[in-house]
């Protein structure tokens, strides 16, 4: 069964619906074109350019009588123009009503998402077009010119405000003890509110420095199976966890087996890789994504988020990309049964860097 069939609401529609959709799309396109360019459709003669309804001179503009302006525009009332305008607006309103009826019908009969969106778009778009058409065809068109307010206040007012303020200021300055008490009071009230933030939860800190693994812990798969030294062939990898925290985000570890002779680990880590098994934290030191991709041919770990690469043969040192710190390594040893165990914690806290990391 295909996935489409399983999506009753979002799924594809039949040919009939598709035709309706095509119509809706076409209508939408028309609506936007007409809505946007309605002004340009107006006959040229009706475009009246400059008629300063507000009056040419600045002083009378604000108070000019609106009824006078209409008289300036006789050609606006030509019959054909009004008839056309009325016809277009009527048509748009009708489309809007049709869309709304369609939406209600679709919704109550078990709403297909496409039709719901289409009918809603139709009704709203048609209403918008109706309003724009109304404004362009049936309303008086003028270019008004109005004066701007001169923004700065006059000097007298400003001086008055300043003087009133200064009276209090002088008084406050004289009583410096009270002023200081006020400042301290505001400070303490702020501290009071800030301290309540403690309620949000335990502060971060110790958990960030956790190096997760402990010596002797067995390496486990996500299914909870211990990992033996025969689990992998050279050139392959798996994801492992400490036995107490399987599935934990911070504890996820890449276990890779390579040919032992290829390894160039630092001297102090020489015995950390029994039989060519190396283990590194799977949390990227750059931005915390899982470093989940292993390139067998180059022995590189690749982070899929920002394409940092880490050389697993050399202690997971970053070789390209934005990461700067190596992935923390996990020392390994094989016990008497041939089960892989952690030889100690990660070399560093896993995950992205922060201010107080060692």
């Amino acid at each position: 069964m295909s996935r489409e069939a399983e999506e009753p609401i979002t799924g594809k529609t039949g040919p009939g619906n598709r035709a309706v959709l095509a119509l809706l799309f076409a209508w939408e396109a028309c609506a936007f074109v007409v809505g946007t360019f309605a002004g340009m459709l107006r006959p040229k003669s009706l475009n009246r350019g400059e008629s300063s309804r507000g009056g040419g001179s600045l002083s009378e503009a604000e108070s000019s009588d609106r009824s006078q302006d209409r008289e300036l525009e006789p050609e606006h009332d030509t019959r054909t123009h009004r008839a056309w305008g009325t016809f277009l607006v009527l048509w748009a309103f009708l489309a809007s009503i049709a869309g709304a009826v369609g939406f209600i019908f679709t919704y109550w009969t078990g709403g297909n998402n496409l039709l719901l969106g289409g009918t809603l778009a139709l009704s709203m778009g048609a209403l918008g077009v109706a309003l724009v058409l109304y404004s362009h065809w049936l309303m008086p068109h003028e270019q008004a010119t109005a004066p701007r307010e001169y923004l700065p206040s006059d000097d007298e007012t400003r001086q008055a405000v300043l003087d009133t303020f200064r009276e209090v200021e002088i008084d406050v300055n004289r009583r410096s003890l009270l002023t200081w008490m006020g400042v301290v009071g505001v400070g303490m009230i702020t501290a009071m509110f800030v301290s309540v933030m403690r309620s949000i939860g335990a502060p971060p800190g110790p958990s960030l420095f956790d190096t997760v693994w402990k010596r002797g812990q067995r390496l486990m798969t996500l299914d909870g199976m211990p990992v033996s030294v025969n689990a992998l062939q050279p050139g392959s990898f798996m994801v492992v966890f400490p036995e107490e925290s399987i599935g934990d985000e911070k504890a996820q570890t890449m276990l890779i087996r390579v040919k032992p002779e290829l390894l160039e680990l630092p001297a102090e880590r020489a015995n950390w890789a029994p039989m060519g098994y190396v283990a590194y934290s799977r949390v990227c030191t750059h931005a915390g994504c899982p470093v989940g991709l292993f390139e067998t041919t180059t022995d590189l770990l690749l982070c899929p988020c920002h394409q940092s690469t880490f050389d697993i043969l050399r202690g997971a040192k970053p070789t390209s990309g934005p990461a700067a710190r190596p992935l923390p390594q996990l020392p390994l040893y094989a016990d008497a049964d041939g089960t892989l165990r952690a030889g100690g914690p990660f070399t560093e806290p896993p995950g992205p860097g922060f201010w107080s990391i060692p």
Partner: protein
Amino acid sequence: MIDLLARWMGRWLDRRLHVAKFARRAMNHVFPDHWSFMLGEIALYSFIVLVVTGTFLALFYNASGAQVVYHGAYRALDGVKMSDAYRSVLHLSFEVPAGLLIRQMHHWAALIFIAAIVAHVARLYFTAAFRRPREINWIIGLTLLLLALGNGYFGYSLPDDLLSGAGLRIAYSILLSVPVIGQWLAFLVLGGTVPTPATYPHMYMMHIFLIPLLIFALIAVHLAIIWRQMHTNYPGPGRSDRTIVGSRLFPSYAAKSAGLFFLVLSLTAALGGLVQIDPIWVYGPYDPIAIAPGAQPDWYLGWVEGAMRLFPGVNVHLGPRLIPEVFFPAFLLPLLVFATLYIYPFLEQLIAGDIPGPNHHVLKMPYEQPGNTAFGCAMFMFFIVLFFSGGDDVIAVATGTSVVTVRFFLRVLVFAGPVLTFFVVYWLCAGIKKRRARSQLISAELVKIPNQYPTAHKIGGMQQATLD
């Protein structure tokens, strides 16, 4: 009948609130007619769509990281373990009538909201509308952009799907990387080491209450200031620093603006109904072990993602302390970008020697101010290169080269591109400016315009009017 009712209502209100005086002035308030003045309106109207659709979504979303096993209408995920947040979004998408439509409208409206703000800021920038006295509104507008970006990100993260979960972890590492206060910042914003149960209530509260409230308040102040200062005007006949030309609020402008509102609503409905967005059931629930190659954030954060990919792996050690590599491209760079934008009006005043100077109400055309335009274009080029760097792996696959090669070219381009853009645009603008000035000088003599229009753009406008 309606007339009588309006008369009665008007009298009733006026007696109590003295509204007629204000209404008379308000109806006569002049708004310039130009399509580019609608960008801010589109942002405003998509915010309204966001509030209305978001209210509906909030009835169904459950901000809980608690693990549940899914048994719902979407059978492909039957029996899968997931957070209750993710389950509630699946329920909303598949079982609530019109739920998917509203959810997709919400997501589309968020993208349009941010796109409209960016376009609006660009329009203001390239026409020098940020000059005195509009610096305050420029700053408020940028703050609105920042809030919109943050809220978009939180909204994207709330469904707790595989992609948004990975994004959340990146956001956590960015906050954590901030010197000194990083841990506390990550703790305060995301509730601790992501993923943690506290993350969803934290983000939810900010997404549906705190940030929308701030946006609402700032929009109110923004509009009040626009009302007080009035709009700018493009240069043309009759437009000066003392007058404004356009149509009056009532009825012409009000009808057009209301029409635009319904057109924006219609666009989001069409997109929400017909174009799938963020199909979280395809991605699956968040799983800290799973990887999602080829993941990209929503478009508006693509440049931060790109910067994170291009920035070289350098750790800065200050004694025993560390500033992680993520800090520079993902925190410091956006900080610098916004700081530059915030102080730009004041910088421009310094450079143009406009201190002290008059208030400017007539806009400049981009070619009239080559330095400003060139710098803006260079900045855009910078963002575009960064945006494409956010898909360096996709480019590498498409061109059949290695990511390392692609990254090398992008690292060069991110510096070379803007510099080149600056010089080319400067040269173009300066050329156009020169040519226009010359032709206007000639035509001014031909038409014999009286000498009362001293500046070039006003002569240009006048000349156009005469030819019409």
